[in-house]
């Protein structure tokens, strides 16, 4: 077996040093009844060629996004990632290292995390950020629970524009922790409705912009309303490239901003692994979940970085920890940081503008195909009303080689929005793609 270095001679010699007659003797503590006599009923080992062949065949059964016109978004976005990014993240020193618990020999990872935290804080317009979460949806749930710790209140109000998977994840996790989760009715322009629901028991309101229907909202008034009642505003963003163009959550009064960072540096990967961004006001720092990287000095006074404020974390606090989280999304955060560094602020702003321009082109084409565009102000996604079932339309167009977006019913079958189709355009979308979609929509 190519991954196992020991030879039979090695094994025999080592057993001799140990003083055991055979390897079975090392498993002596396993109850006899539980010892399997031989291999389980699965195929035997396979060579690299054979495994590659099987996986390539499975891969070929999928229609890759790049294989034709493609308009899916709704929480996962196809962007061009420079080749440099994937090269660097595959360097042994990044790929095959562990969480930086020994900072003297992990300054590479730690400095990257410090750069990541600084980038995330700048993008979200807030003072501090953590070293990443599993993804945007779990970051959202953690933000809601953080609001409970800060306000000592139990109720969270989720806007009807929040991605349904985010709402369901938050409902599952935060409810298990004892919170009352109020999910508002899904609606295109749902944000303002949260204001009336805020009361003196409200820990936080959760608003997404651009929301799941693509609507861009200035949440300043919602922030004011929340703060007037002593509640926090959590702003969710699923498309991180939008930070390049739109007012930041911090600028609009958010106390906590969470986002899916996949768009920057990370492939679609059929939904994971992704990278959750989490930022907040400095005064809330000690209530943050997850890992934090901080600056310090070494014994010779040289600047360096360590994981810090670990007294919040499970390995120190055990049942009193702020969260049970033990890992972040290190390699995806690295990819984010490298891509963000290549872009720079000016590059991200340009990229965001291109995305918006592509979406305007898409909207014009959809208008031209005679469909109603429901999203009034958008970044790179729009919601469209189709005739009949959006899911059926998507299947029909997939058969023609066009991945024509995401039917809203896929995210939430109970919302009664079966005729709503979510379409997205990015810098990877060509004018030919848009023309092909428009023609297919017109013919459908």
């Amino acid at each position: 077996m190519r991954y196992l270095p020991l030879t039979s001679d090695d094994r025999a010699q080592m057993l001799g040093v140990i003083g055991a007659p055979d390897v079975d003797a090392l498993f002596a503590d396993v109850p006899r009844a539980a010892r399997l006599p031989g291999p389980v009923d699965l195929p035997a080992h396979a060579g690299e060629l054979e495994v590659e062949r099987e996986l390539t065949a499975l891969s070929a059964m999928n229609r890759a996004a790049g294989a034709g016109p493609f308009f899916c978004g709704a929480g996962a976005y196809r962007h061009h990632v420079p080749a440099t990014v994937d090269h660097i993240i595959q360097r042994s020193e990044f790929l095959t290292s562990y969480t930086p618990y020994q900072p003297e020999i992990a300054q590479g990872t730690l400095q990257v995390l410090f750069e990541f935290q600084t980038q995330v804080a700048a993008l979200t317009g807030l003072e501090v950020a953590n070293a990443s979460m599993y993804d945007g949806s779990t970051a959202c749930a953690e933000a809601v629970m953080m609001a409970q710790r800060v306000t000592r209140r139990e109720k969270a109000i989720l806007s009807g524009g929040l991605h349904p998977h985010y709402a369901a994840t938050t409902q599952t996790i935060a409810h298990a922790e004892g919170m009352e989760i109020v999910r508002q009715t899904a609606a295109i322009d749902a944000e303002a409705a949260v204001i009336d629901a805020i009361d003196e028991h409200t820990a936080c309101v959760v608003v997404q912009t651009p929301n799941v229907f693509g609507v861009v909202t200035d949440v300043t008034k919602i922030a004011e309303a929340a703060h007037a009642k002593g509640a926090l505003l959590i702003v969710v963003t699923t498309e991180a490239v939008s930070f390049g163009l739109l007012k930041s959550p911090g600028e609009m009064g958010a106390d906590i901003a969470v986002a899916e960072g996949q768009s920057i540096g990370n492939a679609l990967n059929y939904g994971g692994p992704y990278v959750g961004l989490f930022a907040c006001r400095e005064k809330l720092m000690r209530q943050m979940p997850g890992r934090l990287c901080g600056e310090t000095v070494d014994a010779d006074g040289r600047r360096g970085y360590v994981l810090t404020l670990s007294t919040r974390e499970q390995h120190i606090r055990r049942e009193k920890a702020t969260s049970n989280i033990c890992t972040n999304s290190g390699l995806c955060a690295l990819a984010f940081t490298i891509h963000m560094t290549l872009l720079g602020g000016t590059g991200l702003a340009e990229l965001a503008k291109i995305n918006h321009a592509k979406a305007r082109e898409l909207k014009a084409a959809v208008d031209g195909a005679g469909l109603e565009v429901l999203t009034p102000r958008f970044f790179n996604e729009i919601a469209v009303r189709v005739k009949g079932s959006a899911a059926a339309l998507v299947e029909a167009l997939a058969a023609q080689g066009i991945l024509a977006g995401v039917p809203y019913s896929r995210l939430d079958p109970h919302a009664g929005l079966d005729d709503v189709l979510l379409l997205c355009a990015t810098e990877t979308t060509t004018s030919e793609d848009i023309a092909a979609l428009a023609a297919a929509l017109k013919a459908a």
Partner: protein
Amino acid sequence: MTMQTIGRPTRPEGSTEAAGFQSLTGGRGLLQDEPLIFELGGWTKTGVDLPEVAEDASDLAGLTRAGVDLPGLSEPEAMRHYVRLSQKNHAIDLALYPLGSCTMKHNPRLNEKAARLAGFADLHPLAPVSTTQGALALMDRLAHWLKTLTGMPAVALSPKAGAHGELCGLLCIKAAHEAAGQGHRRTVLVPTSAHGTNPATAAFVGYSVQEIAQTEDGRVDLADLEAKLGPDVAAIMVTNPNTCGLFERDIIEISKLTHAAGAYFYCDGANFNAIVGRVRPGDLGVDAMHINLHKTFSTPHGGGGPGAGPVVLSAALAPFAPAPWVVGGANGLQLVEEAAGDAAQAFGRMSAFHGQMGMFVRAYAYMRSHGSDGLRQVAEDAVLNANYIKARLSDVMTPAFPDGPCMHEALFDDAWLDGTGVTTLDFAKAMIDEGFHPMTMYFPLVVHGAMLIEPTETESKRELDRFCDALRALAAAAKGNDKDRFKGAPHLAPLRRLDETLAARKPRLTWRADSSAS
């Protein structure tokens, strides 16, 4: 696995300038000093070429920001910046990385290649399932392997890490109790040696945590367990093999007692790599167990994630598993994304989409490469390597549990350092100077000054001997009054010991133009 810091110094004990040669510019040969990107002056720079956009964003008037205040770098500068940083990291590809409970083993590059195939990497999670049949087939095959290897009938794939899997398992247990009118059960029993995530997860779900005592020989105290198992107990959470690197000999009795009390048995599967192919947790009476794909099935640790933590479930808990899952049908494989109908008992959703697909591909490639025979060999070699280290070091260090074999990791305490003035931390830092990553230290909490060494199965005898020789030499130095070697360690790392107290007292989590801690 996590590092324990209670009781160990977090401040360096003294500054001693490295003696000897100094370069003129502060350069250190191959090791480049590298500033933060914010200090490299690229405030208007970009390393990507994008087409000009004629159109403005006037339809977003009042909703746009003035600009993004972040620096960029050209491609060669960015490459150099991150390559320089990478050289300050230890890595499993460089040398033994014996972090107990973390399982740092070789990461095959075939797995990386497979995960990057366009059909997996460039696949949208919400693309029509008719266009993602290969992805669903892969998830289905992975599930089959996980179920067969564990002897469990069901698996929830979506949890994104071990702790997320623990949460998933406990939510299944909570839902099952509530469905059976047993919602009053509010206590979870956890051994004192458990990972910190176990009590944290139980508390998170609203359970109160009670500790189970440990016997002299490092196992769960059955009498104490029996005394604490009552009508209020919802579950026990036991790691097996446990965090002392020992198999729980009474595991079948533990599960019988637990079930007799009406509670469920959650097994922390962090150490499944020690028994894969040789023992099925289902045969031990386990009801739920997460599997860290990044440990047992070698998906890369990546400097701290991403992980993946699928949870295998017993028949009793299977109906409560969260969405989504894959089912077969007349029109190929389908993805159930919303619990309804027969599956209405599902407790909810752990995250957006369907889990860590990129990790599923890697783990499946790893399993297929080993096969059922190779995976059994994995467990055997992992256990053999750990016992070899234990045997080679037992005369110079003090094994915490000298009697009988260990499983995949060898645990030592610090009794052998008594009177030397050297602590576990000092010893660990001195290992860095010898070219090795330290072992897990000060964990588990039940052993004083713990040193938990996990070599894994992907180490050669030559590397194990090199490691044991280095530790023997260090042990001799510690006992030979060579204290400065340890107190000032590491001497040869990119940085000397870091001041963690300063970092926590005045947290500086982002770069700011004004100043820095140094």
